[in-house]
């Protein structure tokens, strides 16, 4: 195993955006599911966007699967990311949206087309391949985005609350599906959440507050005896 078993290694990461500053130093083991939790404006999204390569970082080093990706393009970092919205192109069919995860030029050979069909089938959308996102429900859109994550087959999956707009039952269903997809793809997952009950479904927990990123710790232990700042955030 490369990277000594560490799937994600963040060293001396510093981000400065106007008045806001964030620093992080942590490592994540392969195959873990992490909940990133913290107050609004604490820097959770900023952290994930920096890992994904979407915003400038001031200094530091990011390593994914034993490879230095600090300066790599977003598509060359071994990372798949789902955003709060805009995860699907509304003018392309679900199959095309998923296909982009395999080839950005959308020239799929037969095996790849079958792969797209298979991925859609595994998220329960076999019948909807030729629909456009606007013609299916919010839950089905989330499923299609997850099908793309499946075919992207990246070792690290970042979720910036992609299911926030769904109702509680549907959200739980999507989180389960995500876990299953991540397990099938062998991916490590970092997901931002506001809900403690969602966090409880993860293995580890990263608490972000005011630009400070606490290293991951097992969820059960942390929630049983939260540090003062997390206790205040949880309202306990």
């Amino acid at each position, binding site marked *: 195993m490369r990277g000594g078993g560490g799937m994600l290694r963040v060293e001396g990461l510093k981000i400065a955006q106007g008045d806001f500053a964030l620093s992080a130093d942590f490592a994540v083991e392969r195959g873990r599911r992490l909940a990133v939790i913290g107050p609004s404006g604490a820097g959770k999204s900023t952290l994930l*966007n920096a890992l*994904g*390569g*979407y*915003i*400038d*970082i*001031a*200094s530091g080093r990011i390593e994914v699967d034993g490879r230095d990706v*600090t*300066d790599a*393009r*977003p*598509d*060359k970092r071994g*990372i*798949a*990311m789902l*955003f709060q919205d*805009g*995860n699907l*192109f*509304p*003018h*392309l069919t679900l199959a*095309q949206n998923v296909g*982009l*995860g395999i080839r*950005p*030029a*959308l020239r799929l050979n037969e095996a790849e087309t079958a792969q797209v069909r298979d991925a859609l089938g595994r998220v329960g959308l076999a019948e909807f391949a030729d629909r*456009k996102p*606007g013609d299916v429900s919010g839950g089905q859109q989330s499923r299609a985005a997850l099908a793309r994550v499946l075919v*992207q087959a990246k070792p690290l999956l970042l979720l910036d609350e992609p299911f926030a707009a769904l109702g509680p039952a549907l959200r739980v269903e999507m989180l389960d599906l995500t876990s299953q997809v991540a397990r099938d793809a062998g991916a490590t997952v970092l997901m931002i959440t506001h809900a403690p009950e969602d966090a409880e479904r993860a293995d580890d927990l990263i608490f972000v507050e005011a630009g400070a990123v606490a290293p991951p710790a097992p969820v059960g232990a942390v929630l049983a005896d939260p540090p003062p700042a997390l206790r205040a955030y949880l309202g306990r």
Partner: protein
Amino acid sequence: MARRAQPVSPWVGIIAAGFVVAVVIAAFVGISQRIETTTGLRAAEWQAVRFTVWQAFFSALISVVLAVPVARALARRRVPGHTLLVTLLGAPFILPVIVAVLGLLAIFGRNGWLNTALGVVGLPEVSIYGAHGVVLAHVFFNMPLATRLILQGWQSVPAEQFRMVGQLGLTPRMVFRVIEWPILRQVVPGAFALIFVICLTSFAVALTLGGGPRATTIELAIYQAFRFDFDLGRAAVLSLLQLAVAGAAAVLALWILPPIAVQTGRDRAVRRWDAPSPWGDAFWITLVAGFLLLPLLSIALSGLVGLFYMPFSVLTATWTTIWVACVSTVVLLVLALPMAAWLAQAKWGGAEALTLLGLVASPLMIGTGWFILIFPYASPTAFALPVTALINAMMALPFAVRILLPPMRQVFNDYGRLSMGLGLRSLALWRFVLVPRLRPQIGFAAGLTAALSVGDLGVVALFADPDVATLPLQMYRLMGAYRTEAAAGAALVLVALAFGMFWICDAWGRRYAAS
């Protein structure tokens, strides 16, 4: 340190912008070769500068002053044919200038409907030729534009505000103070500035209705120096003047020029509780409808008759016009799309100023420069059509970029990260994301360019010899030869061509418009 990645490489856009700048600079080099220190500025040149600024100022002022009550009336009343009227307000923008002039002559000319009516009641006749004719034609073109810009501002007022007015029982005076005045203060300066800048480079209107020492714009003076005296030195001096005047105006106006949106016919009815007596509004709507429709009607009527009098030259000119317009449109898209993509990602907002080069560098100024450059080596008439196509594209560039830029920014904002994450770049990004998302705007910009190119009577008049003509030039020649029926027939063909090409492009954009 990691640099933030961008979905589209800015270089193609920068090269496109560099090309535009190079075309203008080359023209400038050509001009400066012919400027001699002894050429100096004569009274006639100053007179042209004064008239250019004067007519642009009054054209803009009258257009805006008339547009305010019309936009207000259209915003708060529903009249039969309301949607059609709002759509028609967009028509003059793509109506070929020479056609509109013919229509205005039919109404306001010596034998026009107005003078006939005045004669019946024994009043002296009015003349459309001269300074006031130039302003009248400019108002015909630009008052509808101003009305639409102001109407858009009015429609941006949330319906809740008008409900609040009803709830509080505000008087019309208060409504004006609380809602209308703030909107007008936002929209009117931009509309005024846009029209002022457009009118500064007016050529075809001045050519047909102006002339003489008291109604000659700088552009027209360039043309006259060229065609009548073949005095390239004087044309060069005038070109420099045009550049200075339009450049100064554009720099001043840049910050208040409004964005140009695709008119989606979004004239939803807002229930209003504050409208006073309807008669004032009825007056304004009737006035603008008459002012717009009567010239168009006269073109249609006389054109149908004139179709039978058209010489064969109209047919060849039509063919020439179509391919010039097609080339212009392709050149425009090749320049505007990468530029818009670059500007949409650029942090430096001032980059937009580059697009104004198209407005600042007037067609005849660029034409003069290129004529001087080509002249020693080849016959400029051989380049008449390619140069016309290129300059037409450049003239449409400021509008096209302003149409494309806001939605382009939106696409990068909504789908930039997703595209980067998936590795969508260059051609794949254009094909799967940008073109499908921007289809309505691309179609609209292409249609606008095609229509403007079809109707353009500018640089082609400078270069062309008697054998080469676009349809507007041919029509102008027919008018000059007093072949009025034939000119009217050509006008109808020209209108059909301009609107037809606009419609084809625009319909392409709207069809399968991405949901």
